[in-house]
C-alpha cells in the first residue's frame, strides 16, 4: 500500500477545505487534500458543484427568461419580444460549463501552491492517519495536522425519502427538463430560491412550510416583499402544513394542514429543502475522540477540535452553513498551523438570500439587538425613493440600519430588493470597521446606485435624511 506523509492533511475539497489547503500551501506547509468527488462534490464542494454557484446560474437564467416573458406581455418600456422559449437542457449545460471552469480553476490554484490532491474516498484511521481508496488502489496518508472539512448534505425528510420524484437541491439543479408541477417542501432560503426560479421557468410551484410564515429565520419586514413577489409569480404557499408522504402511485404529495385536513398535491417533482446536516458518516470520524456540539463537531475560536492537531472548518462545525464562513475558517486554521496567532474573529458573517427580491442581513436585527439589552435606533430607506431602483424597474424593498442609541455604533444592516446582494460587502465592511451612523452618513455614495439607500437610511437614523 502506498504511503505518503505530509504536514497537513485536509479531508474535503469544499470552500473550507480548499481554502485551508491553498493557504497552507502558500505558507510553505507540505499539504495533501483528499477529495472523494462524485455527484455531491469534487473540488469546490457543495458550493461550487451543487450549491451556491449552479443555483445562481439557474436563477439567472430563470430571471432572464421570465423577464423576456414579461416584456412579451406588458413591455413597460416598449421592448418587443415574441414568445420567448427556453431550452433548459442548454441552460444546464451552460451552468455545468461555469462549474467546470471554476472547479478546474481551484485545481490549478491548489497545484500552483504545491498541494497534493488525492482523489478518492477518505477514511480516518486515527487522528493522524487517513486511508484513501483511489482509482489506483488504497493509499495511506500520515499527517501531523488533520483538517476536517467534510461539509454537509441535504437532510432527508423521513416521510419523503430521496429517490424517484423526491429530489434534493442537488438533483433540482441538474434536471433535464422543467417539471410541470413542482412541490417544494420547506420555505427556507434554498426552497424559496429554487422554487422561485422554477416558477419563473414556467413550473407550477407549491411551497409547503410547517411554520406559519416563509423564511422563518428572517424578520417579517424583510420577508414581506418576497412573499408579495411569490404571489405575483403564482406560487402557492401552504403554511402550517406538513408533507406526510407520497400518495399511492407516487405522483402526489400527501399534505396535512394545521387545521387537521389532509389533501393530496399532484407533483411531477418534489423538492425536499428542509435543511442540511453535517456530513459525519463514512469518514471514520467515530474513531476519533471528538467532542460534539449537538449534531456538529465542536471547535474553539481557532477551529481546534477536542483532539490535538485535529481541526475542523465549515458546515460540519455548525451554523451558519455558509461558504464564506468556511473559507474564513480555512484560512485561519492554515495560519494557526503555520504558527501564527489567529482566531476566527469576524465581527459579522453576512448572509444573502437569492430570492426575488434578494435579502441581505449583516449583524444584528433590531429585535436581536434589543434582546441583547441595547437601546437602538432603527431606520429604513425604501427603494421607491431611490433613483437607480426605479430605473431598474425594481422599486420594492428597502435598506434598514440598526445602531446603538448611545454612541451610534452600527450593529446591523439588512436590505431587501433586487440586486441588493452586491451591497453585502459594504454592509459587512461597515460593521467590521466599527462604523458609526455618522461614518456612513459622511461617506459620499455614488449616484445613482442602490447603495444610496444605505447612505440615506443611516442619515435617517440621525434625523438627517435628505430624500424622504
Amino acid at each position, binding site marked *: 500500500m502506498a504511503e505518503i506523509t505530509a504536514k497537513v492533511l485536509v479531508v474535503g475539497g469544499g470552500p473550507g477545505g480548499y481554502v485551508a489547503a491553498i493557504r497552507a500551501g502558500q505558507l510553505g506547509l507540505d499539504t495533501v487534500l483528499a477529495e472523494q468527488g462524485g455527484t455531491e462534490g469534487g473540488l469546490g464542494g457543495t458550493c461550487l458543484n451543487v450549491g451556491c454557484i449552479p443555483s445562481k446560474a439557474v436563477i439567472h437564467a430563470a430571471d432572464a427568461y421570465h423577464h423576456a416573458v414579461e416584456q412579451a406581455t406588458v413591455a413597460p418600456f416598449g421592448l418587443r419580444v415574441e414568445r420567448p422559449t427556453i431550452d433548459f437542457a442548454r441552460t444546464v449545460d451552460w451552468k455545468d460549463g461555469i462549474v467546470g471552469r471554476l472547479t478546474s480553476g481551484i485545481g490549478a490554484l491548489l497545484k500552483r501552491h504545491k498541494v497534493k490532491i488525492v482523489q478518492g474516498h477518505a477514511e480516518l484511521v486515527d487522528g493522524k492517519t487517513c486511508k484513501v481508496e483511489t482509482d489506483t488502489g488504497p493509499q495511506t496518508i500520515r499527517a501531523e495536522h488533520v483538517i476536517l472539512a467534510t461539509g454537509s448534505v441535504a437532510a432527508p425528510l423521513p416521510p419523503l425519502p430521496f429517490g424517484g420524484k423526491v429530489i434534493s437541491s442537488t438533483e433540482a439543479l441538474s434536471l433535464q427538463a422543467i417539471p410541470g408541477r413542482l412541490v417544494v417542501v420547506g420555505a427556507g432560503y434554498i426552497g424559496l430560491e429554487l422554487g422561485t426560479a422554477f416558477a419563473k421557468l414556467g413550473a407550477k410551484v407549491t411551497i409547503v412550510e410547517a411554520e406559519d410564515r416563509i423564511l422563518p429565520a428572517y424578520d417579517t419586514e424583510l420577508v414581506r416583499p418576497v412573499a408579495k413577489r411569490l404571489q405575483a409569480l403564482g406560487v402557492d404557499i401552504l403554511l402550517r402544513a406538513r408533507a406526510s408522504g407520497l400518495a399511492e402511485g407516487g405522483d402526489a404529495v400527501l399534505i396535512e394542514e394545521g387545521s387537521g385536513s389532509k389533501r393530496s398535491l399532484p407533483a411531477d417533482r418534489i423538492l425536499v429543502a428542509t435543511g442540511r446536516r453535517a456530513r459525519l458518516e463514512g469518514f471514520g470520524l467515530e474513531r476519533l475522540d471528538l467532542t460534539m456540539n449537538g449534531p456538529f463537531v465542536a471547535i474553539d475560536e481557532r477551529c481546534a477540535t477536542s483532539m490535538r492537531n485535529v481541526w475542523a472548518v465549515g458546515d460540519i462545525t455548525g451554523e451558519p452553513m455558509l461558504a464564506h464562513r468556511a473559507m474564513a475558517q480555512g484560512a485561519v486554521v492554515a495560519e494557526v498551523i503555520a504558527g501564527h*496567532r489567529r482566531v476566527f*474573529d469576524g465581527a459579522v458573517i453576512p448572509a444573502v438570500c437569492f430570492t426575488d427580491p434578494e435579502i441581505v442581513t449583516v449583524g444584528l436585527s433590531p429585535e436581536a439587538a434589543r434582546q441583547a439589552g441595547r437601546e437602538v435606533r432603527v431606520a429604513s430607506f425604501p427603494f421607491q425613493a431611490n433613483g437607480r431602483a426605479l430605473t431598474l424597474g425594481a422599486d420594492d424593498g428597502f435598506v434598514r440600519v440598526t445602531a446603538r442609541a448611545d454612541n451610534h455604533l452600527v450593529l446591523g444592516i439588512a436590505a431587501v430588493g433586487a440586486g441588493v446582494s452586491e451591497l453585502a460587502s459594504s454592509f459587512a465592511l461597515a460593521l467590521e470597521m*466599527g462604523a*458609526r451612523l455618522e461614518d456612513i452618513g459622511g461617506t459620499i455614495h455614488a449616484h445613482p446606485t442602490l447603495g444610496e439607500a444605505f447612505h440615506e437610511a443611516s442619515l435617517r437614523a440621525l434625523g438627517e435624511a435628505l430624500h424622504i
Partner: protein
Amino acid sequence: MGIRIVKLPDVGEGVAEAEVVEWHVTVGQSVLEDQILAAVMTDKATVEIPSPVAGTVVALGAEVGGVLAVGAELIRLEVTGEGDAEVAAAPREAAAVPPPAQPLAAAPAPKLPVPPPASLPAESAASPIPTSRAPMGPPRPPGEKPIASPAIRRRARDAGVDLRQVRGTGPAGRISHDDLDAFLRVGTTSAKAARAANTEVTTVKVIGLRRRIAQKMAEAKRRIAHFSYVEEVDVTALEELRSSLNAERRQDRPRLTLMPFLMQALVKAVADFPEMNALYDDEAETIERHGGVHIGIATQTPSGLMVPVVRHCESLDLWECAAEVLRLAEAAREGRATRAELTGSTITITSLGALGGIVTTPVINRPEVAIIGINRQAVRPVWQGTQFVPRTMMNLSSSFDHRVIDGYVAARFVQRIKSLIETPATLFLEA
C-alpha cells in the same frame, strides 16, 4: 441602574491632594457600603476611604501612585436606582463626564455624549492637578466588546495583545492603530530600558541624617544578636471596630489607623513582659526596665528614617495615641521634631504602610531590646473547623535582642499581642 461618582473626601485639615497608595477594589467588583475602597496618602497620613454606598465599581479614578485633588473623582460606582444627585451638583464634572446612561436627545451628531473612556483624559487635563497618566480607569465597561477593524485585530493578535485591554480613543470607543501603538509603547519601553546597558555611576555623599542612620544600623547589627519571629494575626474584628469608630468619630478627632491600637496592645503586653520595655547597656552590662512605655514610631521622612517617640503611652487613650502619632509624624517629616521628641523610646513599632509586605526583619532601635513590625493586611481564606472563611489577616514581624530575650519569652510576648488584637475588647479592659 445609575452611576455614582465618589469623590476624594477632605482627608485632613489643609490637605489639598492625596496620592492613591492602594486600591482595595477592582473594576467589576461589587462593594458594600463602608467597604474600604482605597488607601490614599496625604503628606500627613495614609487614610482609607470607605464606600458611601453599595454598588459595582465601574472605573477607578487613578492608578496607584496617582495624585488626586480633594473633590476629584476617586471612583465610579454603578448603583441601583437613580444615578446620583452628586453628579449633577458638581458642575465641572457633570460637564466633562455625562453619566453614560444619559439618554441621547434626538439631536444631530456633534452633540453626542462623548463616551466615558474618551472623556476622561479631557477631564484630567481640566482638573487642577494634571497627571501624566491621562487615560484612567478601565478601557471600557465590563461586557463591552472592543471595536477595532480587522487589520488592527490582526496586528494585535500578532503582537499578543488582548484588545480588551486597549483603550479606544476613536468614535464609539473604536481602537485605532495609534491606540494600539500607544499600548505597545507602554508595554515595551520598560523592557527596552532594562536591556540597554547603562554605564552611568553617580556618587552620593553619605552625610547628615543618612550618616547617622548608617552608623546606628551598623552598630545595631554588629552588637545585637537579632532574632525575628513572625506571627499571623486575625485583624477582622479590629478592622470592624476601627471602621465603626472612624465612622462615628468626632470632627476634632483624627481618623484611626492600626497604629494606636497596636500601641494600646503594647502597653498591655509589656505590663506582663517588663523585660521587653527595656534598654540594654551592653557596655555596663545592665538592663533598665522602664515603667513608662515610650513607643518609637519608625517614620519615613524626605531625608530618611526617623523615630519620633510617643511618650508615656500608658497614660494615653486610643484617640490621644492617634493624635500624637499624627502630630509627631508630621513634625518629623517637616523637620520640626525636637530632640526630645526624637529620643527616649523604650520599644519601637515599624510599619511600611501599604507596602507592608508579608514578612520583614526589623532592626532593633538600640539600646532597646524589641521592635514590632506591621505587615500588610490581606483577606485570606482561613480554615475554621468546617470551612474556609475570608478573614482579614496581617503578619507581625518582630525582632528581639537574643542576648537578653529568650525565644520562648519573645514568642509568648507576641502571642499576648496577638490575643489582644484578635479580641480588641480586651484592649480596653482594665487589668
